[in-house]
């Protein structure tokens, strides 16, 4: 999967260039984990190109949010569509993960 990564000090913005699916979400996870291990304390995942989120991806978000929170950092989702917002609300993940 192609990911656009922009770094600004300890802040990182990651933008998948295609849908996050059940067979590629781990690539997104690996890229985020790599940034956290390299010292990123605020990771934003830009979902402009993502129309649908599945439970496996939601589980991955939870793992990432917990990992970065342990280091005093923050995981943020940006540019989510209304369908994804609905799923975040239904699963109450909007209470756990910051959405901008």
């Amino acid at each position, binding site marked *: 999967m192609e990911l656009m990564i922009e770094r600004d000090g300890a802040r990182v913005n990651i933008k998948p260039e295609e849908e996050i*699916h059940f067979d590629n*979400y781990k690539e997104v996870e690996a890229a985020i984990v790599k940034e956290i291990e390299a010292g990123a304390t605020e990771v934003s995942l830009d979902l402009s190109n993502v129309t649908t989120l599945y*439970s*496996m991806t939601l589980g*991955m978000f*939870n793992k990432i949010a917990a990992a970065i929170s342990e280091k005093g950092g923050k995981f943020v989702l940006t540019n989510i569509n209304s369908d994804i917002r609905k799923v975040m609300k*239904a*699963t109450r993940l909007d209470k756990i993960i910051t959405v901008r």
Partner: protein
Amino acid sequence: MTLEKKHILVVDDSRSVRAFFEDIFSKKEDFSAVFAASGEEAVKIFEADREDPNPLFQFVLTDINMPGMDGFETIEAIKKIDPGINTGMITGFNIDDYMKMALEKGVFNIICKMDPPDEIIRTVDNLITGNNIFGIDNYLEGSPNIVKVKITETSMLKTAVNDIIEFARPNLDEEKLYGLKTGLIEMGTNAIYHAYGYEKGSVVALKDTEEVVIQYGADDKKLIVVINDSSGSLSKEKVLSQINKGVNPSPEDLIASGGRGIYLTRYLCDKLIVNIEKDKRTEVLIFMYFNQEYIENKPLLINQI
């Protein structure tokens, strides 16, 4: 030819609801229904029936929210008299509000009063006989064309889902298509990864003994997709527990990295039925109605034989 009648006891405090059920069951030659206006009355009627040398009732269908004994208490009292009796619940309220109680009391089927009458009858019939719960043919009217796809590797799931979405597109709006797509991926990946113990997210080629089959078709009112696996690794308790975790999540459930697929599918699709033949097969049926909207009042339908 005389049909063997199925004798049921229906409990509801509302006169109009009893009249509604009287109407729909009287149109079915193979059903005979007796009505009680309260849980207390139902227990008396049932007790007398079981004292008879030739007891009749094969099924008790009760409303949940009633003055005096509620539906859960009624079922509990009825089961004390005859633990083997088949029972079901029905409500016009949001079934999610009763999910925790259903889990505690081991109630796996709650029918929605707003369901189409023919589907209420079908559900009751299935709960009484246990017959015909498996198979898309049993849920579609007429003889529609059924498409069958055998999934042998993960990439085939995406293709099948895209084909189903295109099949559904003329009859469903974008919101329902989104729900359907999500539900199909959730239940399809469940069938591949969880049923056969593969690592989530991996590229999988199923073995010859591992079968995942998707069937879909539509009648005038609805589209149904059935996802079948040959493991039967789920149990009705597990399915209900997963749904309840989505409806009533604990702080641990909120931060869990898995277990939301069934809840999310039920939430986004119009109706979800899970049929389990333990250690043999699991069948998940996803219903999407063309005109009818189920927003909050979705039935709970989990069957295990």
